[in-house]
């Protein structure tokens, strides 16, 4: 299995951080409101537990999640593995791909990574996403897959 680009770790950290900052902000607002309402509330009674609770998802989880990702591509199939608690391995036969996107969000652009989205005709997981590729790798894979896409696989 090939690991994702290092940049993807940064993307995951930023994503986790955004959620974390949001939660802390909500906790602080709640604290401020309760502080005026309940006089004998110790400062940090809400903020501290919340900080402790989000420490794992914000600090420890991104590297673990990042390490859990991996992919392998050969002439016929794309294998993708991800998931820390629930391990998921997806096999996409390249001949079954209907169309294919390479996309890049603002945070991803900042870290120099792109994501590859494979669309199959299936419905349960018709969008198979492989994030954290360098632009060149994503485009190479896209071109390889495009060569294999057939018009009528149904």
């Amino acid at each position, binding site marked *: 299995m090939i690991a994702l680009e290092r940049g993807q770790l940064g993307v995951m950290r930023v994503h986790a951080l955004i959620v974390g900052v949001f939660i802390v902000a909500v906790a602080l607002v709640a604290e401020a409101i309760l502080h005026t309402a309940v006089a004998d509330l110790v400062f940090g009674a809400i903020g501290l537990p919340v900080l402790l609770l989000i420490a794992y998802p914000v600090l420890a989880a991104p590297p673990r999640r990042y390490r859990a990702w991996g992919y392998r591509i050969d002439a*016929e199939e794309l294998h993708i593995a991800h998931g820390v*608690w629930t391990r998921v391995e997806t096999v996409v036969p390249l001949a*079954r791909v209907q169309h294919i996107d390479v996309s890049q969000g603002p945070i991803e652009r900042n870290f120099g990574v792109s994501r590859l989205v494979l669309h199959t005709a299936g419905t349960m*997981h018709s969008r198979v996403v492989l994030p954290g590729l360098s632009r060149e790798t994503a485009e190479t894979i896209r071109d390889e897959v495009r060569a294999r896409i057939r018009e009528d696989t*149904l």
Partner: protein
Amino acid sequence: MNGGTIADRHVHPATVPLRFLKEAPSTLLGLPAAFAYLSDVGWATVLSFAASVAVVMIFVNWIIWSRFRYGVGPGEIVIEKGLLHRTRRSIPFERIQDVDIERGPLQRLFGLAKVKIETGGSGKDEGLLDSVTLAEADRLRGIIRAGKGAPSLGAEEVPRAEPSQLVFAMDVGRVFVSGLFNFSLLWIAGLFALLQTFDDWLPFDIYDPGRWVGLVDQRIAGRFSTGAILAVLLLALLLGVVTGVARTLARDFGFRLTLEGERFRRERGLFTRTEAVIPRRRVQLARLQTGPLRRLLGWFQLYFQTLSAGKDGGGHQAIAPLANQSEVAGILEEQGGFRVPDTSELTRVSSRHLVRTVLPPLVPILVLAILFPLGWALLAALPPLVAVALLERRFHRYGLLSDLLFVRRGVWRQQLWIVPVAKVQSLRLSRSWLQRRLGLATLAVDTAGAPAMNAPRIVDVREDRAQALAAEIAARLRAQDSGRKSGTER
């Protein structure tokens, strides 16, 4: 395509009065009542007003009719519509998944039919011709079908449909029996909703069990005796049966499944006759389903999953609403050698499934038992949990036999999926935290048109076996795809 197809045909002129008749009850009938209520004008005024509304409605419908044109060109069908905002839609024949012909009671009266052209897209009314003569509907369907094979066919020299062979049919008695199984509990729910609405007027609280007991004991308030409540429940039950039968009769009356060359054709319906065409090669998988009562009597329901999302249940087409074992086998045989495997041919999932399902609820029960002395009583829930897990495993089997993947699952509602390996779109092997500790895995195969909830999944199979099965399916897909590649290049 050349884009020069001329849309020169109108739908049948009778569509104008037909649409009017359809809309009239909702718009026109309310008017006199509204007027009579609002002011005390004479009936003559009201009637003349209604007449003028009717004239306007007919005129609007006529304009819509006159601006709606369609045409069939080489390889495509073109529909033009709209008064100010004209749209021109061209649907290439290759993109068309199904052509359905539907005939409501009014349409049957006029000898007309509604033609629905379905493409893979999810939008409604992608191509709707409402309504054309039956002959025109048949002609269009013929052209589209022929066009999919040979795009250069002229409009008039359409080959008539191949001789059709009856595969399955249901007589009235069978539809009636099928309706009995479709008993709906909706009436009981409705009754309780009604009771809740009139809660304030009742002399008791319907959600207070103590009151219920008291009610039975003392028969308070006279009018709500036990007998009366039983009678109401019985009535709801009866209504449930009657509506189930009525609904099924309306939908499945005269159910006929025929095979014409490479396509199944299904006709059904009492008031609205619908006709659906299911090309054999578009069938993604077959699903055989039976409930406890049906199973006891040897009845099954058969569905085919197709790509296009029809209005009745996603891409699932009812192929046989109620059929016995030999009939099912007969239909499946026609679909490229599908079959129902013998139980002995299929493999059970791992016995560790028991641990995987019982452990998660057991842990909180034990924690509670340690914390509170009364918590030990919760252990009484353990035997049923174990029993359910054992039953689940007993009925959950899978097998990859020649080119078909079989998955059987469900205790109460037993289902069997028959998936041709060639139709598998992707494979997903997932292992939860507990599954990894137990060396188990869940394998899900994705197919086109699969519903999100009820798709074939093999749960809690031993990890090495799941890996091997996934690898085997992937290998067969590889072999098939490369085979087709060399086949088309030659």
